[in-house]
């Protein structure tokens, strides 16, 4: 009796899984809120329904059936938008798991960034930024959203300050007592050594 019950459950879940598409294949997002407009016209047929936030947003493009030739990148910071829907060939992001190259048609991924160099490759030109930390969301429709707190082009960094900071935090680590101080010193070392290798490498 228990075996039959588990078989029934398995059959039902398999059927449901086959019917449901992959959650990473995105259909085009709706640009107007259909349920809201229907409900409005039912109650107040004389007035036009007000616009909802959804209608002000640009609809999400659908996942194309063949791999697109360019990757669309949105690179944003809290105070500015560095790249807004820019079509590029490839970006290399400094994920915590290592440097990750993102090409068009990349599998949908969410990656946390560590302090490191982000490079945007467009044709024969390459722009490098040093990113302090952040996230990259790669969608199935070859859109990549890179968000960072602080991102600077490499020529704005001062080598002497970097090396001074590295020495300072190395000494702080050896003199740290509490866990929190040790963690802060370790963060300082990580960031400054990443800055150092970005400037020298």
């Amino acid at each position: 009796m228990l075996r039959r019950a588990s078989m029934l459950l398995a059959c039902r879940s398999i059927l449901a899984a086959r019917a449901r598409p992959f959650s990473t294949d995105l259909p085009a997002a709706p640009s107007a809120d259909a349920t809201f407009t229907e409900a409005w016209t039912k109650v107040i047929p004389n007035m036009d329904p007000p616009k909802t936030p959804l209608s002000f947003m640009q609809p999400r493009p659908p996942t194309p059936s063949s791999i697109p030739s360019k990757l669309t990148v949105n690179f944003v910071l809290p105070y500015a938008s560095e790249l807004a829907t820019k079509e590029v060939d490839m970006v290399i992001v400094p994920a915590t798991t290592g440097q990750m190259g993102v090409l068009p048609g990349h599998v949908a991924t969410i990656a946390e960034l560590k302090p490191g160099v982000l490079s945007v490759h467009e044709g024969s030109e390459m722009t490098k930024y040093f990113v302090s930390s952040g996230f990259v969301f790669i969608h199935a429709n070859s859109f990549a959203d890179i968000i960072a707190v602080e991102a600077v082009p490499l020529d704005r960094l001062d080598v002497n300050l970097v090396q001074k900071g590295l020495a300072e935090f190395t000494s702080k680590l050896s003199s740290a007592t509490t866990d929190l101080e040790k963690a802060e010193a370790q963060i300082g070392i990580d960031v400054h050594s990443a800055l150092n290798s970005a400037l020298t490498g």
Partner: protein
Amino acid sequence: MASNAAVPFWRAAGMTYITYSNICANLVRNCLKEPYKTDALSREKVHFSISKWTDGKPEKPSFCSVFIRSLHLPDMVANL
């Protein structure tokens, strides 16, 4: 199932991701060359107003504008 993977060292030390991310950003800002550095320092500022409450009524709020580096939030909240 398996427990969570090894937590990052900063979370093991009791720091949240936002604190970690802000510390990283501050360190990067401090390594900038001159004209960019002064622009960036204005971004570090945190503006807030604190008001203490006594007997269910708020007292006069105090407005502060502090560099986030010098802010040790747990200590500040404890001292309120």
